[in-house]
């Protein structure tokens, strides 16, 4: 059997678990961005320091489901396999969740450190526009190259 890394069957099962968790997490992330009508509840964050609810769910669900499977299944070998795949899944999910919380916190702190955003005042007219306004006129200005600080000198 092709096994260039000389991995034991236990290590293979751990890796399968990790990959399973990773694919679930990134598939959810892709869905958040590109699936139209994806539930808003899953796209929102409870707190700006936390990942989105969908991301938390996609990281927590695989190890939990595999652990439950391990508890439910009666066959000894399947139980053992599910336990190992579940642990592999936990090896990805737990550190990834910590990494995501840290990364989101850093972003939130960065936004906070930028300072308060002062919006530019916007002038709003009291009257609705009733006719097309012509408040700009196309003009022509002739310029000539010059030497010195200014790039052009206005002729007329």
């Amino acid at each position, binding site marked *: 059997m092709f096994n260039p890394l000389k991995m034991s069957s236990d290590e293979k099962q751990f890796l399968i678990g990790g990959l399973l968790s990773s*694919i679930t997490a990134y598939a959810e992330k892709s869905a958040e961005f*590109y699936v139209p009508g994806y539930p808003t509840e899953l796209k929102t964050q409870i707190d700006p320091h936390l990942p989105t609810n969908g991301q938390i769910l996609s990281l927590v669900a695989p190890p939990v489901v595999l652990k439950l499977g391990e508890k439910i299944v009666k066959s000894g070998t399947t139980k053992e396999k599910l336990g190992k795949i579940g642990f592999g899944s936990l090896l990805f999910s737990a550190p990834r969740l910590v990494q995501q919380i840290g990364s989101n916190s*850093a972003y939130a702190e960065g936004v906070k450190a930028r300072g308060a955003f002062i919006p530019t005042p916007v002038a709003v007219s009291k009257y609705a526009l009733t006719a097309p306004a012509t408040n700009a006129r196309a003009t022509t200005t002739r310029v000539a190259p010059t030497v010195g600080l200014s790039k052009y000198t206005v002729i007329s």
Partner: protein
Amino acid sequence: MEATTKNMLIGAFVTAGVDLALEAYYMYMAGQGKAPANQFPYVTPHPAIPPADDWIACAGVPFGLYALGKWMKKDNLVTMAKGGAIYGGSELAGQTMFRCIIEAQAMTGAVRYAVVGPPMIR
């Protein structure tokens, strides 16, 4: 918890810690509007490939732990490297998949991509 299991978990957390340190700096600067994009280690030869910071954390750290473990003849370090490799390998594989999806969306000119733009990969 068994010693092997504990060491693997420690290795995965060490790898994720380095990943977090590099990612947190980028995200903090991005929050301030000064994202160090296209500066080492946040560079990539192709948008579908994870940037250098992810390779350093997810491949470099487990490799470093493995080399150190072999050199010092410490089995627990080798086990930690294996835990780190499972986290790192899965992270790189997942991120490559995600980046390929983004690229595919951009290439096909998907409406959502045009409106929202590329997502920030954390």
